[in-house]
């Protein structure tokens, strides 16, 4: 029952820094970049402190403005939320644009993205989550267009239209929920949901929310923007969007599923979208010609897998989903960094291993992990997923079969590309020689993967405890409603 006022810092600090950054940037060119990095560092420290407190004393909550739960907005932070806030902070720090542009635009967007993302995961109020989701969405439209290329503008405009329509649907969903339940606080809804949200309105509300938030979470029908955006956006933005921001949207969907809509039709809906996502992603990736679009499709597939994991009721499913999400957040950005340096048709990259053996080795390591080869963490995440899937109803056995078949197709196209790197004489223009600076994030992520390989046991225990905590609805409701003074 602890209330921690500093719970707002991960949101407030980046926003205030974002507001002040243009001013700082205006008065001294270099200062803008340093100010931005400093702000991220401060946020990271604040979030780490908060995470340490939450890990120690259990989930914390704080009512904004001192107003008690059903009236005001309450922030709720448990291990799951804090983990993803830290992941976001590290992601933003790692993918901070390289210092050549002097304009302050991308930095403000990144800071607001940081603040908005933290708010998205911490907030305990339905409409407040929608507002933070919009902040993240607008920031990602801007960042997607920050590449400055014509294709970038076209793609982000189409993405904006799609996502804005999705947001209005989500807003309609919130209207339905409010019309049915009369309150917006998640904990309140959790208590009211069994009797109020069971009928068609409840199911329709979940569908609308799922589609609205699904755009960012790359769920099946609404992820047609993914290949265009990831092809045209700068690589650091792509890795941020694909690696981390899409996970935040999925965590929000998980919150809705666990707290407000624990109905079989909701789980069934997410499962079908997940399976279709995996099928679409893997098969389309198999036919993609250049590396970048291959990884764009494969990120759709991987998020489909995470959606399947979250659609399994009970803490086992959540644990599998978190493990898969964390693993994907580490592996996919590294893939995009490699793809960014080796643009163009895969065939042209033959003999790449000779000019840059280290990068080719990293590529193989990442592919092995994402397929799920035992010693690597990818396998343990997939093991958790299959463990959860097989212990629930036969529909999930089909999902597990699809995931396994997907892994085979994934192995096929990843090692087809690896075959080009290692085989064949070097006929194209030589594979790009890498300036070490450019691929540092990729190698950092590769190192994290290797370290995680040895720390599976503690990581596994931490994730399962996080999942149990996130699935325990009565405790969450009690903490939000009563805990927040």
């Amino acid at each position, binding site marked *: 029952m602890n209330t921690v006022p500093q719970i707002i810092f991960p949101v407030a600090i980046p926003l205030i820094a974002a507001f002040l950054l243009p001013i700082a940037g205006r008065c001294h060119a270099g200062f803008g970049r340093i100010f931005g990095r400093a702000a991220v560092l401060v946020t990271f420290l604040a979030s780490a402190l908060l995470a340490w407190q939450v890990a120690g004393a259990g989930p914390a909550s704080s009512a904004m403005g001192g107003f008690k739960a059903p009236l005001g907005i309450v922030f709720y932070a448990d291990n799951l939320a804090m983990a993803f806030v830290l992941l976001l902070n590290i992601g933003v720090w790692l993918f901070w644009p390289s210092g050549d542009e002097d304009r302050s635009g991308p930095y403000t967007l990144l800071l607001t993205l940081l603040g908005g993302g933290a708010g998205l995961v911490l907030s305990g109020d339905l409409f407040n989550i929608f507002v933070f989701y919009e902040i993240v969405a607008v920031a990602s439209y801007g960042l997607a267009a920050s590449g400055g290329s014509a294709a970038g503008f076209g793609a982000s405009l189409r993405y904006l239209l799609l996502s804005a329509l999705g947001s209005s649907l989500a807003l309609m969903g919130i209207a339905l929920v409010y019309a049915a339940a009369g309150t917006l606080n998640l904990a309140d809804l959790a208590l009211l949901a069994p009797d109020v949200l069971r009928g068609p309105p409840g199911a329709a509300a979940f569908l609308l929310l799922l589609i609205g938030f699904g*755009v960012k979470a790359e769920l099946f029908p609404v992820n047609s923007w993914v290949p265009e955006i990831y092809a045209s956006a700068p690589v650091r933005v792509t890795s941020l969007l694909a690696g981390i921001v899409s996970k935040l949207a999925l965590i929000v969907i998980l919150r809705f599923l666990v707290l407000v809509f624990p109905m079989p039709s909701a789980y069934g809906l997410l499962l079908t979208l997940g399976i279709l996502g995996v099928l679409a992603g893997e098969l389309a990736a*198999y*036919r993609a010609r250049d590396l970048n679009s291959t990884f764009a499709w494969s990120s759709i597939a991987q998020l489909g897998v995470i959606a399947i994991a979250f659609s399994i009721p009970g803490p086992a499913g959540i644990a599998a989903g978190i493990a898969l999400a964390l693993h994907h957040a580490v592996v996919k950005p590294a893939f995009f960094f490699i793809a960014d340096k080796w643009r163009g048709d895969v065939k042209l990259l033959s003999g790449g291993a000779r000019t840059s053996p280290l990068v080719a080795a990293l590529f193989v390591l990442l592919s092995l992990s994402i*397929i799920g080869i035992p010693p690597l963490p990818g396998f343990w995440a997939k093991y958790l997923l299959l463990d959860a899937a097989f212990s629930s109803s036969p529909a999930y056995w089909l999902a597990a079969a699809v995931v396994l078949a997907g892994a085979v197709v994934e*192995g096929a196209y990843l090692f087809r590309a690896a075959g080009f790197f290692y085989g064949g004489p070097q006929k194209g223009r030589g594979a790009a020689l890498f300036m070490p600076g450019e691929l540092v994030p990729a190698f950092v992520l590769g190192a994290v993967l290797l370290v995680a390989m040895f720390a*599976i046991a503690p990581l596994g225990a931490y994730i399962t405890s996080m999942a149990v905590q996130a699935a325990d609805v009565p405790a969450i409701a009690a903490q939000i409603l009563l805990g927040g003074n």
Partner: protein
Amino acid sequence: MSLLLRRRFFWEEIDLMSLLDILLLVAALLASGLFVLGRGSFAGWLATVVYGLMLAVLAIAGLALDSGVAFIPSAMSFEILGRNLGWRLDGLGWFFALLTVGAAFFASWYGSGEWGRKQKRMGLQHALLALNVLAMLLLLSSGDLLSLFIGWELVSWAAFAIMTQGGGPAVAAAYRYMIYALAGAMAVFAAIMLVQNVTGGLGFADLQTAISAMSTAQVWVLFILFAAGFGVKMALMPFHLWQAPAYSETPGASSAFLNAVSARMGLFALILVLVKLTGLEALGSLAIPFTFMSAKSALMWVAAITMVVPTFIALMQTDARMLLTWHGIGQGGYMLLGVLVGTSLGTAGGLMHVFNYATYQAALFLAVTAVIHRAGTSDLDELGGLITRMPWTYVTLLMGIIGLAGLPPMNGFVSKWMIYKSLLDGGQPLLLIMAFAATLGTILSVYKLIHNIFLGQLRREHQHLKEAPVSMVLPMLILAGIGFVTGFMPGLALNITDIAQRAIGGDMLPHHLGGVTLATGSLNMLWVVGVLIGAIGAGALIFYLLGNRRYEVHQFDNYAGGHFLSADIRYHFSHEFYPGLARVIGPWYRGSIVRAEQGIGILVNVAGDLWQAVFRVAYTPLYMLLVVVLGLVFTGSWGIVP
């Protein structure tokens, strides 16, 4: 029965715990060491010596296992995600480990000689060989289903790595192998998860309880997943297309290792899971409705077909290595058939065939590599008459093909005889006939191999060929010698397979040094081989004593219907060696399985294009609308129908 040198001495004092640890530690150190300092020429010799050391450790472990110790536990065990992973070496694992390290010993000895020096990246090949051995030891000493699966993946990926060393076509073959192996691994993964779902645990005992606790439908699914998953590595019939090109494109020494042992990992896993844990009677009870066949007989028929069809495909090959690898697939069918018969004779026959196969297949591959090393090609239409230039390689190949064909003086005959005898006593005449037919096919194709390479006219470009260097000939000859010795005294090999058979359970086979004496017909190789050698001696006496002295004539001093032979016209019959047979069997090779494989490939391509087209449409919001309508209908109906 007593082992080689039965003396009770120090192995009781050695702490058994550490034997397996020593083995794994040494293997790991060797693998990493070679990766680091693989460049030097001494790397090969170092590896050979270390393998020898490991063989010694295994021998000591064998002594322990032989004296009744159930298994050699290892200190290495992890507790991950609520599952504990343990490693321990039982008799079955020990037997396959012995073969693995033995094959590695000869392969690395062969690779560190002159052949190795001519390879581009021999250091890397030595390192990858060591990595393969480490992966196989981990698989063979796995203590529960999860460590079995982890070992399984490591083995398939280490094999993938060693296959890509050939460059060019080898990479394409390795890629095809990787897809098969990945599909197999995923099937095994699903099966393991099925077991865990039923019993909540992943130990071997859990599999046994799971079998009894499951409904027949679930047991069928489990059986098919395990058989298919492990069958891929063993190249059982429907999944065999990848093995021949993959194993023949790998560079010489490692391909000998792969052929001799790597495919047998699938057999080890099948025996461990289906025979030892599930039990043959459980498989037998799984009846296929409407037929009098059961799961066990179905698998036996698959093994039988895997025995016959690849052998006759091998008959039609024109590349020596492809011919041998296709035979490798065929021989796999023999081993599985022997083990599945269920009688102690059958199991002993199957296991001994694994041992024999490893010896003569390795010898054959090393011999063919020696031919490639000297003549530059392994295409049977480009060679001929090398007996005069490479006699020792000829001897090795001769002893190898006699073993492969399963004719008396060599050990191949003993294990095949045991498999035939067990099929006969087990009441399986049709399978026995298929086994005989496969053996006949083998005899035909191995004769084609030795004739096209060594017999017939020597070509002009091979006139000045020299015999393969000693570093290559010696290991070959020793392997062929092992084949002959275990052929002459099969008891030695049977003592080794006893340990594995005791681990599998079921009754043991009473045998003596010369072979097996059963009520319904026995085999004593001491007499058979002894009399054969004596009789050949008598033949030699008749030949040398009677009639005048013989003198040799030049290769072109030949009856050619009045035509004068000279070097420039090719006077050697090797292309399309069995024309009559080809006319009869030819039409049967429609390659239906190859077309099925291509069909799946095309299906995936079309599906991929379809999904990509779905995403290329300009009106993305339409999808959102579509989904909302469908979703509402879905949820609406759900709501109305509570």
